Each structure stands twice: as structure tokens, then as C-alpha cells.
């Protein structure tokens, strides 16, 4: 078989459908002002299910930030935000989004204007100020869903506190949408959300197979649906198809890269403007990034959800997500992934944008080295702002890291 044929064979059939769904989704969102459907901007870790129940279209500035990064518009927009007075140290999603709102620039001509904002601080503190700024700018109501940080465990007080806010959230939606919250529908949406998360986890699990049918770079792409449309049937249907394709690949022995010799775990957000470069770089070393801590975050708290009591149990699930827990618990889950996916090394993206994700990395690295003796490497960057990426340094580091990984094996 020629290299081209082999390449074609490794392409995902489902990728096209995914693009279609995302295009339809953005068209629907962009034409909401004509169809009369309300639009809510929501943080990536926010409880989206109540919005689906209320027929509100959820829009994710962070998902859009990823698009900005992937289409190499990040540096420009970030620089514009800096000219507006925002610090260079601020999250590059926030900078890009703030600049974009003013400009109507960016991919797909900007996001549709929001009718409301829903901000959940389970991912970081940045989103609080970011959403406050946008609420003032668009002059729309803002709901803040406050999830206390879980240094260790989850207290009863926290449970009561967060659960109470779900009622407030529903009140908020009823007021803004001027209609009642349909409890029966919420049960259905809850079921579909769990089904979607389960399927997504299963898709990711196929990477335990050797050779892995997918890389983390593929996961970064396929992730968009579980983030944006969680709770809808579209997600369930799509991931069912995707899972079938993964299993077919396993049956046919199709690996995601040509010659998988090393298996690597990725930590933190992707470097959106360098996905291709990075994936080729690792593939040239016969290294497959089989798993990552990032895409797992959207199915990592299923254990806390009671399928028959979604609304109540989601309080805990949304509070205990990966970015809202202590370093020890984070390390534990990384160690679990190292075993599960049988990796030979860990690559950490020290993402200057995302402080909660990056702060504990040196500690986690030390824990990994102590417990597993695996090589770890760091890449410093911002996930959207290209000005922070130094190719020759990263290049040398990856080469050295892979030399060490291969020496050990």
C-alpha cells in the first residue's frame, strides 16, 4: 500500500459528520435572533443541561477560543485586548474573546450576541471577571454558579450550598425565558447527558488498545460535541457512530499513527495553533499521544451522578471536576491514566493562560516520577497566543524527551 493510501486509511470517516454538526450548530446559533431562540454564553465546565431543557442555545466562548487558536487568529486578538488595557498574563481565551466581542472579528464573523450569560467558576476564577465584563458590555443578565474549591473531598455544607444554586439557576432561566422549567424534560436531558458522557469515555477508552486507534489530537477535535451539545440526542447518536468506527479500526488493526512504539500522556489544554506540528513531531518519533487529562474532564465526574436524580446529583458532579480539586487528587487521576493507557512518558503543557491547570504541574510531575519513574517534559506556552511559542526550544525538548523515553524502553 502506498503511503498516501495508508494515510487515507488512517483518516476518520466520522470527521466529516462532526464538521457538519458543528456548522449546523453555529448556523442555528447565529440565526437565533431571527428564529427567536434565546442564546446563552456559558463557561466550558458550566451546567448546560438546564439550558437544553429550556430550549436555550448554549454558546461557548472557550470552544470559540479554540477555533480562534486553530485558525491562527489568537495573537492578533490577544494583542488587541492588550491594547484595550488587559494584561498579557490574562488567559488567552479571555483576551481573544473580549477583543472579538468588540470587533466582531474572528472565525465565523464572531459569536452570536448573548441573551444571558452563565458562568460557573469550577474551572477558574478568570471566568468571573471575564463574564462580568461581557455582561456589562452586552448589557444582559449574568448567572454565577459558584462551586467551592474541593481541596479534599466534598463536604455536606458544600453540597447544600451548590444544590441551592441549582434552584436559583432554574429561577433565573424561568425569569429570563419567561417560561416554566419542565421537570420531565429535565429527566430526559439528564439521561442523554449521562449517555453522552459514557459514550465519550468509551471512545477515549479505545486508546487503551495497542496500537491506539486514535491520538489525543483526534480527541481534541472530537471533543467539541460533548462540550457544546451535552444533553442532546445529537451527541448520543454521533458518539455511538464514532465508537463503532474506533472499534472497526481496532478490528482492522488500524493505528492512529503509522508505527506506534511509544505511548504518551498529554496534560493540560492543547496548543491549538500547533496541533499539526506537534502531532507530526511526535509521530516522527513513533510516539502516539494516547490520552490526555483535558478531554477526559468532560466525563470524569460520572461517578458522582445519580442517573435517576440528575438535577440533585449534578451539584456534586459539577463541583468535583478536574480543575476544581486538590493536587493530590489530580495526581491520583493522572497516575490512574498512566496505568490504564500504559504510557511511557508524560508531556505537560505548562499553559500560562490557565493557572488552575498549570500551577500544580511540578508537584504532579514529582509524584509521577516518584510513583512511576516515568520521564516527564514541560512545554511552556499559551493555548491561543502564538507569540508565546518557541519552536526551536520545544523541538529540542521533544527530541531530548523522546531520546530518554526510547533509552528507557
Amino acid at each position: 500500500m502506498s503511503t498516501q493510501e495508508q494515510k487515507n486509511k488512517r483518516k476518520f470517516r466520522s470527521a466529516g459528520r462532526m464538521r457538519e454538526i458543528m456548522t449546523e450548530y453555529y448556523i442555528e446559533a447565529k440565526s437565533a435572533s431571527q428564529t427567536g431562540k434565546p442564546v446563552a454564553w456559558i463557561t466550558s465546565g458550566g451546567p448546560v443541561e438546564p439550558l437544553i431543557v429550556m430550549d436555550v442555545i448554549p454558546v461557548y466562548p472557550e470552544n470559540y477560543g479554540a477555533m480562534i487558536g486553530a485558525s491562527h487568529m489568537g495573537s492578533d486578538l490577544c494583542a488587541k485586548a492588550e491594547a484595550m488595557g488587559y494584561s498579557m498574563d490574562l488567559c488567552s481565551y479571555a483576551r481573544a474573546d473580549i477583543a472579538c466581542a468588540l470587533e466582531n472579528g474572528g472565525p465565523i464573523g464572531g459569536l452570536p450576541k448573548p441573551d444571558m450569560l452563565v458562568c460557573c467558576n469550577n474551572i477558574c476564577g478568570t471566568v468571573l471577571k471575564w463574564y462580568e465584563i461581557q455582561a456589562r458590555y452586552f448589557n444582559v443578565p449574568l448567572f454565577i454558579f459558584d462551586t467551592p474549591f474541593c481541596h479534599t473531598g466534598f463536604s455536606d455544607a458544600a453540597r447544600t450550598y451548590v444544590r441551592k444554586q441549582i434552584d436559583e439557576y432554574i429561577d433565573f432561566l424561568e425569569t429570563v425565558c419567561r417560561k416554566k422549567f419542565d421537570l420531565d424534560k429535565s429527566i430526559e436531558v439528564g439521561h442523554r447527558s449521562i449517555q453522552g458522557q459514557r459514550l465519550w469515555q468509551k471512545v477515549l477508552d479505545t486508546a487503551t488498545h495497542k496500537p491506539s486507534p486514535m491520538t489525543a489530537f483526534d480527541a481534541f477535535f472530537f471533543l467539541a460535541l460533548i462540550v457544546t451539545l451535552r444533553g442532546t440526542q445529537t451527541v448520543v447518536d454521533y458518539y455511538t457512530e464514532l465508537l463503532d468506527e474506533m472499534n472497526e479500526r481496532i478490528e482492522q488493526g488500524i493505528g492512529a499513527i503509522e508505527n506506534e512504539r511509544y505511548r504518551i500522556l498529554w496534560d493540560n489544554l492543547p496548543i491549538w495553533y500547533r496541533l499539526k506540528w506537534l502531532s507530526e513531531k511526535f509521530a516522527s518519533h513513533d510516539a502516539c499521544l494516547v490520552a490526555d487529562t483535558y478531554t477526559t474532564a468532560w466525563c470524569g465526574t460520572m461517578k458522582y451522578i445519580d442517573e435517576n436524580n440528575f438535577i440533585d446529583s449534578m451539584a456534586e458532579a459539577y463541583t468535583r471536576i478536574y480543575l476544581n480539586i486538590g493536587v493530590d487528587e489530580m495526581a491520583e487521576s493522572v497516575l490512574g491514566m498512566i496505568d490504564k493507557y500504559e504510557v511511557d512518558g508524560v508531556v505537560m503543557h505548562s499553559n500560562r493562560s490557565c493557572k488552575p491547570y498549570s500551577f500544580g504541574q511540578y508537584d504532579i510531575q514529582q509524584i509521577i516520577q516518584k510513583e512511576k519513574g516515568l520521564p516527564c517534559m514541560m512545554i511552556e506556552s499559551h493555548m491561543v497566543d502564538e507569540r508565546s511559542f518557541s519552536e526551536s526550544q520545544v523541538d529540542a525538548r521533544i527530541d531530548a524527551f523522546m531520546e530518554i523515553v526510547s533509552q528507557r524502553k
Partner: protein
Amino acid sequence: MRTAGIDIGSITAKAAILDTGKILGTRVSFTGYNVEIAAKKVFEDLLEELGLKAQSIERIVSTGYGRNGVAFAHKAMTEIICHGTGAHYLNPRVRTVIDVGGQDSKALLVDENGAVKDFVMNDKCAAGTGRFLEVMARAMEVNLDDFGALSLNAGSPSKISSICTVFAESEVISLISKGEVRENIIAGIHDSAASRVYAMAQRIGATPPIMMTGGVAKNIGMVRALEKKFNQTIEVSDLAQVNGAIGAAVLAGRL
């Protein structure tokens, strides 16, 4: 078997030629803007000095930032592995190598076989690199070669708190204008660079014996400042600057 290692750094190009594990000669020259020419030149000059022909060298490994631009090398390998191998060649007891070059600094742990177990590199910042010292020497109007030695005469080193090279330079200038003793400022500059390198090396748990390599190892002020931080002596070989090239030549023998 005769082998060569070519190390193309951001400022200097280095070459080493080994014969069945014995060093025949080493050489350093400036890199300039063309990696390929620099590599050729340093290699040919060394061959000439040793009275050897290029054909007599069986294997060549290139390393350093310009490693992929050395077309006549049989293989390109990273500085990390080459510095680890070079240090192990010079002294097999060494367990930590601190390499401070023109534009980066790194620390690596080597095991008893000379294999690199772990490494860290400075992040995208000139602090703690040769460039930092160069900029500061210029601000102080001191020759870079005398810079380190001058720091040893300090009564009480000044405190330079900025990590950023540009900010640190303004701090230095304001110290000068305040009339602070020159040696004290210079010692402060070395302390600042050393603490940056120290903190980095601690991240992988540097263990003795420690060897320092790279161009900055020639700077006695930096070596002493690091010894103070680590609270132990740091070995510096006469061949510190060409350590990477030596390591590359050793690795070439294993190709």
C-alpha cells in the same frame, strides 16, 4: 574508530574528534548566521590542526541548536544526551550536569552508565543564561572574560530582584547611578543568574557530584555563586565548553 562531534550553539560552534574513545583534539569558533558553514569550518579547521583527512572520520554526530543544519553528520542528537554522555566520559562519577550556554540553561541527571534519567530546561526567558550575563557585562562596561572574576572581589553583593533581563538591566543601571560598588553589582548579577539555575536544577532533584558544562562554566563567578547555592563544590573540566561535542563524538562511536 575515529569519530567526530559537532556542537552548533547559538553563539559558538564546537568540534571534537575522538579515536577509539581518546580525545585527539577539540576546537571552538563563532557560529555566525550560517550553521552549515560554521559546522564545516570548525570541523575542517580541527582536521587541519590535527593533520587528518575528513575521510578518516567514520562517524559524525551533530548536536546543539543547529544540529539539523549539519548535512555531513550521520545523525543529529540533542544537547541533553550529548552533554550527559560527555560529562560521563569526562568523569563517570558525575550524577548531575548543569549546562549553561548562550541562550539556554539546563540541568540533567545521569546514571552510572551515563544515560540521562531526567532533564529540565529554562523556559523561554534569557534569565539564567549566558545571554543574561552578556547583557549585564555590557551594561557594566566590563569585558565578559573578566566579568566572573570581578564578582569574587565583592564585599557585599547587591540584590538584583528582577528575573527579566530587560528589567534587571534597568536595576543595574540604577544601582550604578546610585554609586554602588561595581564588584558588588557584578556579584549580585551572578547571584541572580545562579539562583535561577539553582531553582531549575532543584526541580529534578540535583544530586552530587555536580559538573558544570557549557560556555558559562568558564565564568568563575557563576561557578562560585552556584557552589554557594548548592552548598558543595561543582566540578568544571577544562573541556567544559566542548563537552557537548565530546559527548556527540562518543555517541557517534555507538552508531
